[in-house]
């Protein structure tokens, strides 16, 4: 199924032309063009893309190029010199037994051992691959590869950054040999050698290899075996404790733990309850408690170092076990680069101790007994009797109060904070334990240039001026109580940790470390070097004018050559009491009023607004049927019987009188325009109202027009109905039909009737008609006709016959003399009918039914209204009672 794409996310199969997975919508096809692969996830170990910026070199300013060239040359010279010196130091220092194991390791496990580890362990470095990947990482920052040829040659592929300082630039066998040789000597003596600088006695060389383990390097096994042998006589009864090592523990680590367990005095240690690392801690402590050589602690330092999944407090506790602060090394070490251990670790221990179980709190306290008694908590003070704590501790833990352990230096942990524990065992910290802190460590006369970088950092502290700095406590109270320092150094990148090695020197009055040049130039990007001030003298002079009084000359790092740029000025502490600010909100009355108004508005927004009139009234079909029955019965009865009980209205209103006069004034055979603008529903009323007027006309020439769609048909009905029933004959009728456009149509018709209606050819104005009669049931229609024809009709009379509902709205037009007469509804027709000479009309037929129906409606409204008022009040009362 090559034509099926399997989704990398969900694993489902998709068609090859699909861009996104149809199951999880993940992208299947890479983006096209330059973005192709841009969205791919960066995988671990992937090498960043090499970007050659060497072509930008020519555009650099001349001074920068000169600076870069000079820096490059000086770096080459330094590297060459350092190489020569290291070869001279380590030319004949290898120990045969030690080297035998290391060589075998280098030969057999070359594939498994990374180069950076081989550098440390003394294994022969693999042949350097030309242009390995890792240098490219640096090229991204540093520019072209050719600009940094020296760094490439020195750099090891895949070397962790935190180990770059450890990686030697020279062949590793010599320095490792030197380490092991010195460690071996110290172990054999059983006493630390105060004459030697603590960091020159690096590794404790194993004498015999331990049990075979596939994961453990030989050199490490040897170290463990040696340590075990050194304590074998004393702790032979404790070997049972660690007979069954944890399966999670590497063999080499179990081996080391077993060896350490053999040294434990207390056989009652609950090994099953403690994790391996903790067992190892106990083993270490036990070994120390029995005055074991310090080298043993250093040897088993790796198991005591908590793994990554260990809690912080325990990790730091383990650190303190290995590096008691009481065993402060020479102050030069603090100044050289391990001062972060001195600052950070006590804080870590102090803070983590608060989280410890009660039985464990005393555990690190004993380790820190001798550290800074003035500022330390009571449990940290060195005067605290170990027996008091030991009374509550298990016997195997009480061994942690061994004074040897208290003398272990604390600086090592910082230097190897990122180094795996097993590697720390290989680190020269074991040699630190050989040096009691009580004895000031003399500074070495000469510096060893063949040591690893981290070792060089140790050595850098061994300046001649260092003894002056020994007497004060290594850890001042301020430094120990600075809680931020712990997190600072814990989170600090390695490159910065290396850089901070110089901070103590800059903060002190010490001159620049003599071995500052020993830091290989490769650690500093050349572009930074190029930006250094060439003339340190001038920079010093310029910096002398700075505000800081600290004139310390920076000798390392990016700030090398600058003076006073990182001042540690005690005067920075605030000289006055900080101004107290009130937390009370300073708001004026107006602002408070506005705030209250805003709150009120917001409250009103959220408060539901009750709709008082939202109650629905249920319908009453019974009332409807009753009304229908009552009205229908009464009207049908009256109409069927044809009664004439109710008299016709008397009296002629003025508007009807005006209409009467107009109808009588129209000459015989005159042209009369009649507009039919009423609805069929009101045909009965309108025909009854209009018929009496038309009965008065004498053989008129009628022209009908309508502005509604059905008006023309109603006109035909009127012609065939009321007009046909009249005695008048000889009517000439012209039905123009529907006049569209409403108001505009009326206006257009009024401007030129002949143009609008071809049947009126020759009639160009409304004034050519003798009268204009509007029959409408709508006041709007009447208004349209009145207003739109006012300027064209001239003086011809206009009469409006309207329904009763429209009459009140048309009446003002009669009052303002815009129309000549108004006949409204059945009432107007009845009045008009009485004035037409006794001609019978349909009004009389309807009048009784009309009058009785109106009276019935009045009664129903009055009676029904009062009844419903009572019902409504009763309902409201009951509802009000229900709510209460």
């Amino acid at each position, binding site marked *: 199924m090559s034509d099926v794409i399997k989704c990398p996310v969900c694993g489902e199969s998709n068609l090859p032309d699909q861009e996104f997975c149809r199951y999880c919508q993940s992208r299947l096809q890479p983006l096209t063009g330059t973005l192709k692969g841009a969205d791919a996830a960066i995988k671990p170990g992937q090498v960043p893309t090499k970007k050659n910026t060497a072509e930008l070199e020519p555009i650099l300013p001349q001074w920068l190029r000169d600076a870069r060239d000079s820096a490059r040359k000086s770096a080459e010279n330094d590297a060459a010199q350092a190489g020569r010196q290291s070869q001279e130091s380590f030319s004949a220092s290898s120990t045969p037994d030690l080297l035998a194991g290391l060589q075998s390791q280098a030969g057999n496990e070359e594939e498994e051992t990374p180069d950076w580890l081989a550098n440390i362990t003394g294994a022969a470095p693999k042949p350097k691959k030309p242009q390995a990947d890792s240098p490219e990482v640096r090229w991204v920052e540093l520019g072209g590869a050719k600009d940094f040829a020296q760094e490439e040659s020195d750099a090891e592929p895949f070397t962790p950054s935190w180990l770059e300082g450890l990686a030697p630039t020279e062949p590793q066998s010599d320095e490792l040999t030197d380490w092991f040789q010195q460690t071996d000597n110290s172990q054999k003596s059983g006493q630390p050698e105060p004459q030697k600088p603590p960091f020159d006695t690096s590794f404790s060389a194993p004498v015999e290899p331990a049990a075979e383990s596939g994961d453990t390097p030989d050199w490490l096994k040897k170290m463990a075996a040696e340590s075990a042998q050194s304590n074998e006589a004393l702790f032979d009864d404790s070997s049972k404790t660690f007979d069954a090592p944890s399966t999670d523990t590497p063999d080499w680590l179990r081996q080391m733990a077993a060896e350490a367990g053999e040294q434990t005095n207390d056989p009652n240690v609950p090994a099953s309850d403690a994790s391996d690392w903790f067992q190892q801690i106990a083993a270490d402590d036990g070994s120390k408690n029995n005055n074991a050589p310090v080298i043993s602690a250093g040897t088993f330092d790796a198991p005591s170092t908590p793994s990554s999944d260990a809690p912080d407090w325990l990790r730091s506790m383990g650190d303190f076990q290995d590096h008691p602060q009481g065993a402060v090394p020479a102050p030069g070490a603090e100044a050289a680069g391990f001062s972060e251990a001195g600052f950070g670790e006590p804080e870590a221990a102090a803070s983590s101790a608060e989280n410890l179980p009660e039985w464990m709190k005393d555990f690190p306290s004993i380790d820190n007994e001798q550290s800074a008694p003035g500022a330390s908590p009571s449990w940290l003070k060195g005067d605290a009797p170990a027996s008091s704590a030991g009374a509550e501790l298990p016997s195997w833990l009480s061994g942690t109060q061994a004074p040897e352990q208290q003398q272990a230096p604390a600086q090592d942990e910082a230097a190897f904070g990122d180094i795996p524990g097993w590697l720390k065992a290989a680190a020269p910290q074991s040699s630190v334990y050989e040096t009691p802190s009580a004895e000031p460590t003399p500074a070495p006369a000469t510096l060893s240039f063949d040591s690893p970088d981290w070792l060089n950092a140790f050595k850098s502290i061994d300046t001649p001026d260092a003894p002056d700095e020994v007497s004060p406590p290594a850890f001042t109270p301020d430094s120990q109580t600075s809680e931020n320092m712990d997190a600072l150094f814990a989170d600090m990148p390695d490159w910065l940790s290396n850089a901070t090695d110089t901070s103590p020197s800059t903060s002190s009055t010490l001159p620049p470390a003599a071995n500052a040049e020993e830091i290989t130039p490769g650690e500093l990007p050349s572009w930074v070097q190029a930006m250094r001030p060439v003339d340190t003298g001038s920079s010093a002079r310029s910096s002398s004018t700075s505000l800081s009084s600290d004139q310390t000359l920076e000798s390392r790092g990016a700030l090398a050559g600058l003076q006073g740029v990182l001042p540690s000025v005690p005067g920075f502490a605030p000289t006055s009491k900080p101004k107290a600010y009130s937390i009370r909100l300073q708001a004026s009355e107006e602002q408070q009023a506005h705030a209250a108004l805003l709150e009120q508005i917001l409250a009103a927004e959220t408060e539901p607004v009750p709709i008082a009139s939202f109650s629905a009234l249920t319908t009453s079909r019974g009332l409807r049927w009753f009304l229908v029955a009552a009205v229908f019965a009464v009207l049908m009865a009256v109409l069927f019987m044809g009664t004439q009980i109710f008299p016709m209205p008397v009296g002629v209103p003025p508007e009807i009188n005006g209409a009467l006069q107009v109808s009588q004034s129209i000459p015989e055979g005159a042209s009369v325009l009649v507009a039919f603008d009423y609805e069929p529903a009101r045909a009965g009323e309108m025909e009854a109202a209009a018929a009496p007027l038309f009965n008065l006309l004498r053989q008129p020439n009628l022209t009908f027009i309508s502005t509604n769609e059905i008006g023309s048909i109603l006109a035909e009905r009127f012609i065939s109905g009321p007009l046909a029933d009249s005695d008048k004959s000889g009517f000439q009728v012209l039905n123009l039909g529907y006049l569209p456009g409403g108001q*505009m149509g009326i206006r257009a018709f009024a401007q030129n009737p002949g143009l609008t209606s071809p049947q009126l050819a020759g009639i160009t104005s409304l004034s050519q008609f003798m009268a204009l009669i509007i029959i409408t049931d709508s006041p709007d229609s009447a208004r349209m006709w009145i207003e739109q024809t006012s300027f064209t009709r001239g003086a011809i009379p206009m009469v409006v016959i309207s329904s009763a509902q429209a009459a009140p709205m048309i009446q003002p037009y009669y009052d303002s003399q815009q129309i000549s007469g108004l006949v409204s509804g059945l009432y107007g027709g009845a009045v008009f009918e009485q004035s037409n000479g006794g001609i019978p009309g349909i009004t009389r037929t309807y009048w009784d039914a009309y009058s009785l129906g109106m*009276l019935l409606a009045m009664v129903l409204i009055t009676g029904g209204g009062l009844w419903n008022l009572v019902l409504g009040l009763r309902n409201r009362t009951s509802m009000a009672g229900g709510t209460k």
Partner: protein
Amino acid sequence: MRVFTAVIAIAAGILILGGYFLQNIFPALADVQTLLLNWAIIMAGAATLVGIFNLISVHTDKVRRREQGSIYSALLVICLVAALLFGMILRPDHSAMKVVMSGIIIPVEAALMGILTISLLYAAIRLLRRRADVMSFIFLITAVLIIFSSVTLPFANIPGLNTFGRWMTQILALGGARGILIGVALGTLTTGLRVLFGADRPYGGN
């Protein structure tokens, strides 16, 4: 497209308005106004046909989807088409069309008017139960008085009743009606101005 329709609408409105008020100053505006009015009238007539077709399409769709009451929709469509054809063929003055008018249209509309009468009676009776406030009382009292003043009594007329009814109708009711109509006219004016200058565009969408 919307801009185009808005420009046309605004220009037509201004020309019509100018023709009303400025034709004495610009006589050409009167001719333009007449031309535009004729166009509007023709389009209004065409709109009537469109409205009829819309009515047919709505009810045809109901019949096709067999919705509730679709039988009435079918009856409506049949009657509409028949009346349209007969009216176009026979003309409105034909006797058959008069029968249709007198036998169907007017009785139906009169029946609706009768239902309206019952509805108004029902509403007036229930008004005080629905809303028993001062305005409702005034409303009902006025209605009763107007009804009573518009009829004659069989045995004896109440003196002054008719005059009182006319006074109420032409003074009180008409005064109130005038006030309401002025308000409506002002609303119509501002609404028309909004449409005239494009603030509201019911034509062409937004």
